């Protein structure tokens, strides 16, 4: 029988939860505060900042841009990474070691270097001009996102006798694709879901690439945050709170959809 938590256990866990959530609560309070200086809580509350931001056309544009880039990068990263992870694990175990090193490469290079590389790559030197368009940002996020699929899915795959599943499937008259779709992919669904959430969170919250690659020509939420950071702190708080909501809602939707697929499988 599991021992019930003591008062000390509860205190420790509650303390950590508070440390995590307090900044978010503080930002949310500042978004609706008339004035907040020198006191534990704001001296008054107002919806003025919220209304002001909601009526700012830059806000809706930034949300739309962020969602387009995040979901776009997610779709491309999924289409590229998932088959590659499965193929390397199942059929090319020797290449898999190289893939493991390759997926973390974008994190070994400073973001600014990669951004300059992407600008040179898509500035027409190779016949493709994407600078200033959301496509360059989208394609910039894809290599960053591959690691988020590779690591958790690979952990799931390691625990599975995939070769045996494929062989059992072949003997039962199934193609490898059928076994991968009906057996292997549902078994690695937890890793896949982690990959989706991590990819989305990365793309929606990323600033360095967005600023260097598209900047003001395709402003995302992070770019708008940067612009507002030099002005009213209340407006910035509203924007950050809205950002939290968007991430929370999008993540919940992704988790629900992926969870349904997992159960259906």
């Amino acid at each position: 029988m599991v021992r019930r938590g003591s008062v000390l256990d509860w205190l420790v866990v509650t303390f950590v939860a508070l440390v995590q959530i307090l900044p978010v609560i503080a930002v949310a309070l500042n978004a609706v505060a008339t004035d907040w200086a020198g006191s534990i809580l704001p001296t008054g509350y107002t919806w003025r900042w919220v209304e002001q931001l909601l009526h700012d056309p830059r806000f809706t544009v930034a949300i739309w841009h962020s969602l387009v880039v995040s979901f776009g990068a997610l779709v491309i990263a999924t289409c590229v990474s998932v088959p590659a992870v499965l193929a390397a694990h199942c059929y090319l175990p020797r290449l898999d070691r190289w893939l493991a090193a390759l997926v973390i490469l974008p994190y070994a290079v400073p973001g600014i270097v990669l951004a300059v590389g992407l600008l040179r790559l898509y500035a027409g030197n190779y016949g493709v001009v994407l600078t200033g368009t959301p496509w360059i940002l989208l394609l910039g996020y894809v290599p960053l996102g591959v690691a988020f699929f590779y690591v958790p899915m690979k952990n799931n795959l390691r625990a599975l006798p995939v070769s045996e599943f494929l062989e059992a499937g072949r003997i039962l008259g199934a193609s490898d694709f059928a076994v991968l779709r009906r057996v292997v992919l549902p078994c690695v669904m937890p890793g896949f879901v982690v990959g989706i959430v991590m990819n989305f969170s990365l793309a929606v919250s990323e600033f360095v690439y967005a600023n260097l690659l598209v900047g003001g020509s395709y402003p995302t939420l992070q770019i708008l945050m940067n612009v507002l950071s030099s002005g009213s702190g209340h407006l910035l708080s509203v924007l950050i709170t809205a950002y939290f909501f968007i991430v929370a809602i999008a993540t919940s939707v992704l988790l629900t959809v992926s969870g349904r697929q997992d159960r259906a499988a």
Partner: protein
Amino acid sequence: MSFVTLQKLSKRFGDANIFADIDLAIPRGVMCVLVGPSGCGKTTLLRVVAGLTDPDSGRVLIDGQDMTRAPPQRRGIGMVFQHYALFPNLTVAQNLAFGLQQLKLPREEIRNRVRAMLDLVGLMERATVRPRVLSGGQRQRVALARALIMEPKLLLFDEPMSALDAQIRKRLREELMRLQRELGFTGLFVTHDQEEALVIGDQIAVMQEGRFLQVGTPLEVYNRPANRAVARFIGDFNVLEPPEISRVFGQESSAAWAIHPEAVRIGMDEGVTARARILAVRLLGSIVRTELQVAGVQLKCDALNRPDAVQIAVGTEVSISILPQNIRHLKD
């Protein structure tokens, strides 16, 4: 005419010769057991028959058709894997239905066949659970049912009971033999357990270092081993070389002798005889095994564990005898 024919099959992995010029013929409805020590090539041979590994040369004929290069999907075979290879995300019933769904059979037919197979292997009440909640024995029954439901021409077993404990192995063996009697399928069963081979097999092929040492019925292989290796591996024989025969029994022989432990009798003086000292007495269930030493040679003697039998103390000197008809002369 045989149902499965292996002709001059050879396979190498790099420098390692797994088997060379293997020939085997399995009649229809027969359970053939490939038995041999680990690493002798039996699993690779099974995989070649399954189409999971390509042979370097030779032919695999199943029901008269050359299947040497055919993919596993086209061979009409079923296979039970050592570690079951059940699909963990599917229920027991879904595992059974998986192969039938690939044939695009009507749903109603799939449902009926799954139900009938679950009934046959006694797993009806476990139809909706996932494999992880099943015991090892139940998982192996699901694996067997998943193979049988496809009504394969040939059923392959890759050491399917090696991961199970002795009691469950015994029960599953009996169940497998019942199913084979009822359904009459042809089987190729790989094991390193000689007792399992003798119980399950209608035909036994003893394999060592990539070649067959002997192929025959269990009685032939057990009673008339072709050579020393078979005698040592299958029957747990006492194998005595000519100099040892001379020392122990005072007789000259150009061939080695193979003597079953149960053919060595203590306290009798019929046939060839000797004086032996008892080294140890061990109980193997219904059998009592006595280890003896004669002129520096160790012999095993098995006798029924009768409740009224007199216990002989370790270290006692006894006379032993073997009837001449129970001595198998080995040239190889």
